[in-house]
């Protein structure tokens, strides 16, 4: 009796770190199925708007469909409102898009990074059905449980829920944040079979978007 099994996990990890005036979004470029590597050069990052970048890990078929869906909705928004979508607006759109498939989820673990309307870095982290939260940093994917403790150690700031509020800006500079991301991927690559090959790093700041590639272990 054939079971309905439309999903597949293609592995990989995505990370985003927000700073005072920049945002770093990074993901490895390995695509796997089971114990096989299908591609060493598959990008998990999509630029949805000029200050808004989505990185997703999970089932790349669903991720491709989700990225196309969001790009189309962003274009409609531009036509209706005569401006590009801001990152917080895209964050809510992504949440709703994921929830509308609540009973047949997109198998996608997303991290959205960019600059908000004030130019400050913002990172939004999601679960597969659309619950989201604005945070200072996040990792999603097969290597996320290896990376998050390291990011917590380096970047954890007082909770935004505290009252009286405490200052929660990540004090790292852009180059320090990029170095941290490279280190964290190097560590995860050592211990996660689905993470490796190459690291794609996208940095968004006031002067635009800048892309960089670093080689990772290919074993």
């Amino acid at each position, binding site marked *: 009796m054939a079971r*309905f099994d439309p999903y597949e996990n293609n592995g990989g990890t995505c990370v985003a770190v927000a700073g005072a005036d920049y945002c770093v979004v990074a993901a490895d470029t390995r695509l796997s199925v089971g114990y096989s590597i299908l591609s060493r050069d598959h990008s998990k990052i999509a630029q949805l708007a000029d200050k808004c970048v989505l990185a997703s890990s999970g089932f790349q078929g669903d991720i491709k469909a989700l990225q196309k869906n969001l790009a189309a909705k962003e274009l409609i928004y531009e036509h209706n409102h005569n401006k590009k979508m801001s990152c917080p607006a895209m964050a809510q759109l992504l*949440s709703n898009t994921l929830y509308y498939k609540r*009973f047949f989820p997109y198998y996608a673990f997303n991290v959205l990074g960019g600059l908000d309307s004030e130019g400050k870095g913002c990172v939004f982290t999601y*679960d597969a059905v659309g*619950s*989201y939260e604005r945070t200072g940093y996040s990792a999603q994917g097969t290597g996320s449980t290896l990376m998050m403790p390291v990011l917590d150690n380096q970047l954890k700031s007082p909770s935004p829920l*505290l*009252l009286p509020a405490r200052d929660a800006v990540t004090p790292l500079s852009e180059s320090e944040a990029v170095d941290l991301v490279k280190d964290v991927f190097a560590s995860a690559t050592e211990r996660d079979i689905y993470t490796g090959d190459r690291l794609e790093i996208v940095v968004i700041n006031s002067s635009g978007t800048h892309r960089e590639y670093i080689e990772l272990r290919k074993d």
Partner: protein
Amino acid sequence: MAMKVDMSALETNFSIPCLDDGDGMHLSADSPDVPSMVLPTCADFDGFQAATKDMVKNKRGTTTLAFIFDKGVIVAADSRASMGGYISSQTVRKIIEINPYMLGTMAGGAADCQFWHRNLGNKCRLHELSNKRRISIAGASKLLANILYSYRGMGLSIGTMIAGFDEKGPGLYYVDSEGARLVGNRFSVGSGSLYAYGILDEGYRFNMSVEEAAELARRAIYGATFRDAASGGCVSVYHVGPDGWKKLSGDDVGELHYHYYPVQKTPVEQEMTDAPSTSA
């Protein structure tokens, strides 16, 4: 073979769909305008939902409480979200601000609660615009309960409390994804609710000052985070009075522990002294 959401519970026999005849009165048996959702085309819907739930491991939230007292309503919650055994966040907002005088709490599936509370906020605003007055807490909780009832059996997981202040005074309703809607004075929802009830029921009195009530709520949530592995993070306490809600406190539970149980200096039996240094 596509599945349609079962709306039979909402069909009534005595409302006739009629056109607007000038006085703006509509009686309609239409279903509430819930979004139309894509459903998987498979033979075994429930098996598929069970399998996706395990695979996707959605974020879940865990100890919330609310109670009515003479000065309004106190609402409190922790801030931990777990995905299976992994803590996915310690900074989740589980008290959702639906509008300036109504709060909703989140327990169960994080996405379900966030989405339907946002949807409820929209409906409350539309009600205000159509009727030129605020919606009552009873009305808001009924809107939510009816929507959740229509999705009954499909795997939504929501255990929420709608708390607020309206013309009839303080209001508190418990609404869940099974379709329950209960009015009451005191509720705690989530995996840590049993621990919170222990402290809450013991310390509750109807006549309390706002500070005493907030301290009771804080202590109850702290107790739940202490014993329940799935609760933790920060305790947020809100008060809803006649002028709307106000956040009273947000405390990290780790620090709160030492506030309640300060470190006792234990008497040392034998002091260790440095070995005398020998000069060579």
